[in-house]
């Protein structure tokens, strides 16, 4: 540094700087003159123009709400539409005395204290010239009455608009979701610019997940208004871009049928096309009428829905978590074969209970099966075989294999709010319960009890994966088209190419399962066919009824543990403590085109209540969509 310093010419540098500083100063002066010139232009030359806009008239910019896209089922039947409706709105800056106006309005329109309360809340943050709604869906009579007396109510407007309507009412409500009035939370989350004119937003289900696609872009209208805020003329207008219509994979007929089959029972049904994961039906019973929510549900109505013991608002199909029971036996059997813990024809003797070496505790089976091999153990649902197999495999191994079928984790369906379920292992228990794993727990987890929890949707997806011989699918409800963004869990950063999003939304969350012995798939699928076709299959009743070859598995999820030595007596136990009935199935077994999971809460055994639902659903679907003759189907 010292060396170069000696070469420096300080006088020259100071001079150079001074010249640059002067240049910068002159530049600053020029820019200030430009600003002053612009001020002069605005405030002197164009003063009159702006003074006119400001004093006598004001330019108002109004956003025009886009029309929400429609939702169709796979055959184009409308599931969600927009119907014309009339809303009563009050404009703050034109209403002189709000209380007096409301009082006088009472004799013309019906509205209750909840309406007034909502109006007053919105009144606070409303822009002075933007109408605040008081009542939605005025009847024709009310519109007529008000129109005649219009002059008596300055600042009161009847605004024609479109309202979301769900023509099928409660059908498919848990998949479809509904729209509701924008609230504070929505305003935090959404781009305020796009929602300036919008009053409704998707709150749940498909309406929520595809909000971006359905919503569209608002238009803009510049109007000139006078001092009272009355519009004098429209200066220009830019039309809104309507939201896109979307088509679902859901089949309205099958959906309605599924809901009818469940009847008065609480439960869930999920039907998939195992080839691509398209959801054909997704039912959760009981449901509710989404139309109630569109314009603000009444407090009492909502409380009744919320507090109902059968929880109609709860989407059992994707949020309900139940022990899978024996429905996981085919997967455990595959695990045993893969790990060579079992040979296909190795037999055990089932005495109706199982004990660990050196312990007295009896793990009961639902009956004494006698001599059974692995295939019999699936078709006759022998617990002892799987107690023993679980002990051989160990919980960590078993949990890892079950997770390969997507159990205990979200399937990635394009619906918000999907739950994880749980496939426990010793590590999990240590972390979450702070306790060690007991071998007795491994035993009961071999038949899908204990801590294990899955959603009906996970069961359907896992079943589809068995049907596909290991190839997983990601369940989805959107049929075609390029949605800009899908919102299920995390927000996407930048908008992407629509196809890329669809492609990613179709990406299964688990890897394909490759077995060392490919024919193990046939073995297990054959055993599942025996569940319905075999002489002693637990669901042989449905095998007789169905013209199709159904591969299935019954299951019973214990709600209530029976004390050691007591007998299970369904009649004696209150209904809500009775076991959940489960059934998973796919058909035709050779080239599957539909995979189903059925859950009936407190339905008792899987064979009696759940299996017939699956069978009738499968039969109806295959009858309406007959598979090509044997051998011609490519299966994919």
């Amino acid at each position, binding site marked *: 540094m010292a060396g170069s310093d000696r*070469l420096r010419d300080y006088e020259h540098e100071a001079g150079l700087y001074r010249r640059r500083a002067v240049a910068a100063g002159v530049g600053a002066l020029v820019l200030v003159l430009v*600003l002053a010139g*612009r001020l*002069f232009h605005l*405030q002197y030359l164009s*003063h009159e123009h702006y003074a006119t*806009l400001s004093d006598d008239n004001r330019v108002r910019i109004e956003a025009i709400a886009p029309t929400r896209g429609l939702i169709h089922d796979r055959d184009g039947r409308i599931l969600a539409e927009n119907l014309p409706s009339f809303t009563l709105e009050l404009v703050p800056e034109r209403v002189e005395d709000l209380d007096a106006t409301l009082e006088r309005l009472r004799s013309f329109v019906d509205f209750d204290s909840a309406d007034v309360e909502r109006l007053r809340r919105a009144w606070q943050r409303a822009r002075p010239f933007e109408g605040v709604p008081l009542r939605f869906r005025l009847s024709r009579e009310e519109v007529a009455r008000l129109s005649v007396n219009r002059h008596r109510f300055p600042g009161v407007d009847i605004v024609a608009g479109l309202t979301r309507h769900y023509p099928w009412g409660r059908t498919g409500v848990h998949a479809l979701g509904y729209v509701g009035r924008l609230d504070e939370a929505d305003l935090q989350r959404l781009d305020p610019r796009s929602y300036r004119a919008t009053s409704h937003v998707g709150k749940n289900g498909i309406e929520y997940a595809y909000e971006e696609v359905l919503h569209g872009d608002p238009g803009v209208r510049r109007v000139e208004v006078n001092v009272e805020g009355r519009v004098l003329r429209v200066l220009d207008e830019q039309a809104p871009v309507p939201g896109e219509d979307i088509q679902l994979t859901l089949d309205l007929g099958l959906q309605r049928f599924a809901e009818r089959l469940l009847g008065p029972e609480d439960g869930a049904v999920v039907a998939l096309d195992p080839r691509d994961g398209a959801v054909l039906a997704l039912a959760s019973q009981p449901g509710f009428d989404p139309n109630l929510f569109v314009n603000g549900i009444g407090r009492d109505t909502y409380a009744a829905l919320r507090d109902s013991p059968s929880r109609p608002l709860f989407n059992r199909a994707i949020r309900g978590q139940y022990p899978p029971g024996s429905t996981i036996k085919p997967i455990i059997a595959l695990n045993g074969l893969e790990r060579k813990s079992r040979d296909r024809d190795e037999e055990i003797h089932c005495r109706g209970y199982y004990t660990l070496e050196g312990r007295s505790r009896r793990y009961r089976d639902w009956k004494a099966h006698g001599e059974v091999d692995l295939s019999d153990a699936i078709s006759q649902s022998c617990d002892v075989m799987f107690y023993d197999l679980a002990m051989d495999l160990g919980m960590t191994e078993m949990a890892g294999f079950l997770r390969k079928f997507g159990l205990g984790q979200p399937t990635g369906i394009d619906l918000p709010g999907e739950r994880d379920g749980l496939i426990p292992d010793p590590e999990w228990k240590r972390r979450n319960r702070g306790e060690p794993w007991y071998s007795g727990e491994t035993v009961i987890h071999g038949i899908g009890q204990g801590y294990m929890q899955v959603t009906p949707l996970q069961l359907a997806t896992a079943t589809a994966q068995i049907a596909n011989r290991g190839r997983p699918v990601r369940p989805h409800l959107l049929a075609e088209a390029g949605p800009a963004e899908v919102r299920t869990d995390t927000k996407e950063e930048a908008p992407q190419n629509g196809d890329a999003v669809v492609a990613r939304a179709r990406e299964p969350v688990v890897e394909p399962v490759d077995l060392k012995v490919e024919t193990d798939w046939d073995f297990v699928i054959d055993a599942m066919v025996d569940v319905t076709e075999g002489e002693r299959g637990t669901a042989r009743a449905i095998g007789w009824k169905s013209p199709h070859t159904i591969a299935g598995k019954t299951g019973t999820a214990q709600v209530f543990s029976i004390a050691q030595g007591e007998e299970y007596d369904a009649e004696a136990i209150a209904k809500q403590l009775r076991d959940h009935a489960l059934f998973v199935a796919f058909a035709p077994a050779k080239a599957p085109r539909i995979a189903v999971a059925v859950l009936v809460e407190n339905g008792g055994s899987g064979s009696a209540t759940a299996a017939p639902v699956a069978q009738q659903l499968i039969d109806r679907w295959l009858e309406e969509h007959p598979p090509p003759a044997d051998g011609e189907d490519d299966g994919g």
Partner: protein
Amino acid sequence: MLGARARGAPLTRLLLALRVDPPLLLGILAIAAVGMVVLYSAGGESTDLLIQQGVRLGIGLFVMLVAAQIPPRNLRLWSPWLFAAGLGLLVWVLVAGEMGGGARRWIDLGIVTVQPSEGMKIAVPMMVAWYLGDRALPPSFGRVLVTGALIMVPVALVAWQPDLGTSLLIASAGAFGLFLAGLRWRLMLGFLLTGAALIPVGWHMMYDYQRRRVLTFLDPESDPLGAGYHIIQSKIAVGSGGLYGKGWLNGTQSRLDFLPERSTDFIFAVFGEEFGFFGGVLLLFLYLCVIGRALYISAEAQDSFGRLLAGSLALTFFVYVVVNIGMVIGLLPVVGVPLPLVSYGGTSMVTLLCAFGIIMSIRSHKRLLAP
């Protein structure tokens, strides 16, 4: 000045003892006073707002006073370390910063949250002045390239947060250092042309939505619900003010809720409506005085470091003024830059007054360092 010092009133003597430059302080206080007057009107005659702003001004003036005590020699020694620390914090922000409004800008240190990009507005010109002031000026081509890299790294990190307004200010602070150091006109022209030539390439590489964003940025009126709404309303407010203005507290446009953000970024619209063209020119004149004084101080500084630092800080201050007012009166796209010493808000107030403290230190320590 020497005479003033000898004959000055007691107050002036006290200020000089505190190493405060009286003309600069006078200009700053005059602008801040105007700011308080407008803020009272813009904030709907709320005294709460005034008190909060007053507290911030007090904190800022204290920081200024402290900064004025630090000899430039120390500032020079600290420059690389401050710069390095600033870079470290910027990286930390990107990795672990607090999200706010879709951007990562803050670090939560438990007691306070820090916005490192704000400090870079001072650290970058310090670094540039340190690096360039070390050797003979004008800088060689190689030194110019190194300086360019020193500027671009923090600019890119801030732009990534993303905070385009701040990265713009940091970039201009660095660029002013280069300009004042005597960057050859030919080189400047060369850089400008290269930049212009790269625009189509960059445009080609952008996604559609990014292009749309740039277009909105350039033409706010194409987005009348967002940025354009502000512009349309603020032009009406300013234009309707006329030559003399509607008078204090009489701005109908701004007071009828038509004008958003009227206490912060768009406060000049309120000022323009109420005080008219002459008020606006007066405020511009005050800003010009402050900048002129600061540039004068920089030219009088002892060494290259002091000159370059004081000069680039003064010009950065000026960029705030031009960008903010230009945006309010529809000459420039809408960027979130406050009107210095007037807009409601604390962060920029403290940074700006700290910068003025540094400028004052460069002035007041001069004679002590002279042989």
